[in-house]
């Protein structure tokens, strides 16, 4: 079983479109939506939920007004400015600022503060027309996204064993922070979608540094290559120098958006066109065992 993660650094580079395409071209993979912050893959794959689980978010401080002696110790010690007196002169907690560290509870001389665990995040095991899907709904403003991604990937591995699936495809988040780290660590290969723009190239390089730190093999896809041919040539040269295989060059094409408006993956929408042909190239590469060995030997040297 191979686990593949699709990331890009920059948002809107085409991760979910590529992931959707791979999903429909591979034979019944397990699909994980690791972009728990803005999960969109379900729009293409229309999962039917089979199991719902809760995932603990951060804890939040709650104040017992009857016990509070207004000593202000909590306000003075909180490093996240999460406590304040509201308009009515009552000590209040800002849930978005509260990190759930519990310092205020420990320092309160009147035992007036309690920490309450949030359980509003949900994650699901679903079936789609292409295979099992593991996805989540995270409460906005939440900060446990890295841990939730790790949970989803564990569940996906279990499901892949159960289904005897040959592939797990993880749709990654934008950026390089905790959710991206949790999406990339320990995968067998990372597909990086590079938007042919200066921002796309800049953000790709930072994401590439992150993936390199895990010594995971990288393959690349350039998206919207015809928007900036000069830059695309520069990106290709860069990839060549680093021996990163370029598996597909996708043009800017209105059809790519139109497919999503009909809740279809691209190969479903245009089964025979040139874009679908290049998407098939990616799948052919991912299916060859030697591509994993070769890269591993390379990163070991």
């Amino acid at each position, binding site marked *: 079983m191979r686990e593949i993660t699709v990331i890009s650094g920059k948002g809107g580079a085409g991760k979910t479109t590529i992931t959707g395409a791979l999903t429909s071209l591979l034979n019944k993979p397990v699909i994980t939506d690791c972009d728990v912050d803005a999960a969109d893959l379900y729009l293409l794959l229309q999962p039917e939920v089979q199991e719902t689980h809760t995932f603990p978010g951060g804890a939040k401080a709650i104040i017992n007004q009857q016990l509070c002696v207004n000593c202000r110790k909590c306000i003075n010690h909180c490093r996240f400015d999460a406590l304040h007196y509201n308009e009515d002169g009552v000590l209040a907690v800002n849930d978005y600022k509260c990190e759930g560290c519990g310092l205020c509870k420990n320092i309160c001389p009147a035992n007036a503060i309690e920490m309450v665990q949030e359980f509003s995040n949900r994650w699901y095991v679903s079936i789609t027309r292409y295979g099992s899907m593991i996805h989540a709904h995270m409460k906005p403003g*939440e900060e446990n996204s890295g841990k939730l991604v790790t949970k989803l990937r564990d569940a996906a591995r279990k499901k892949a064993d159960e289904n005897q699936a040959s592939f797990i495809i993880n749709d990654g988040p934008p950026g390089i922070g905790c959710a991206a780290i949790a999406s990339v660590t320990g995968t067998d290969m990372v597909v990086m979608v590079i938007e042919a723009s200066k921002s796309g190239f800049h953000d790709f390089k930072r994401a590439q540094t992150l993936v390199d730190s895990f010594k995971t093999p990288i393959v690349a896809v350039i998206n919207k290559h015809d928007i900036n041919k000069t*830059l695309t040539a520069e990106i290709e040269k860069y990839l060549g120098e680093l021996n990163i295989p370029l598996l597909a060059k996708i043009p800017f094409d209105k059809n790519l958006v139109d497919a999503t408006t009909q809740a279809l993956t691209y190969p479903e929408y245009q089964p025979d066109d040139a874009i679908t042909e290049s998407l098939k190239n990616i799948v052919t590469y991912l299916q060859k065992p030697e591509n994993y060995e070769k890269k591993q030997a390379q990163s070991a040297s």
Partner: protein
Amino acid sequence: MKRIVVASGKGGTGKTTISAGLQYTAPQYYGKPATLMDFDVEEPNDHLFFNNLDLLKSSAVTLPVPVINKEKCTYCGKCKEACAFNAITLIPKAGIAEISTDLCHSCGACLVVCKDDALDELFHPIGEVNTFGKDQTIILKEGRLEVGLPHQTAVIRDMKKRHLPDTDLAIFDAPPGTSCPVVTTLEDADYVIVVAEPSPFGLNDLKLLVEVIKDIKLPFGVVINKAGTGNNDMEDYLKKEKIEIVSKIPFNREIAEAYSNASIQEIAAHKEMDKHLKHIWNHIKKKTA
């Protein structure tokens, strides 16, 4: 100082184009210069959009992480119990007393419970704040998280605490999404410009962001970018929710090409874009008067 946050649930909708465009046209359409603050600390790329900027200053962002003084530690376990993030490892028999820099949130909970005075904080570098400008005039400040570290929110907090500009108005370019770093960027906004693209993904992520902004009770309006692609579901949704549409920027291949070259001069010079930037500024002036 007035804070205008430019945010988007989905990545790649045009946040940076609008943010940089507003900074660039501020003297013309706002009447005063504005400073651009790049809060997308995971992928800060606003600086690419300005030609020949000088790096005026670079300041380290550090996170104070406690270290345990083993000479004083009695292995009482109080710090470990107080740590909500499982960052502390204590194994008395093996003489191990350690705090993980990656897991530590730098909250100080362990410090207040330690009775042995065995904890000292050491400052770990987690990123930098870079100030760019021309001829000593500040144009933009960016936060840049060190690759591989999970401390994006801490970098944003540091920017807000120590690096706010002294112009009358600042444009905050937010990271994409709706999680903790986005909320930290948003929370003290005077006005929020939400940028959205009318695709199914764009609409889904717009709804998530609107949920957050309404919950924090911030005033906001939506700029629809790349109008004419996707479908009309977004406009139907905005109408139904009575959310104000600030501007509708049609998709234009020339603008997309200018964007790919990351030249704000070229982007803002485009007639269509110029018209909309002026429009957005008028809207901001009205809403923050």
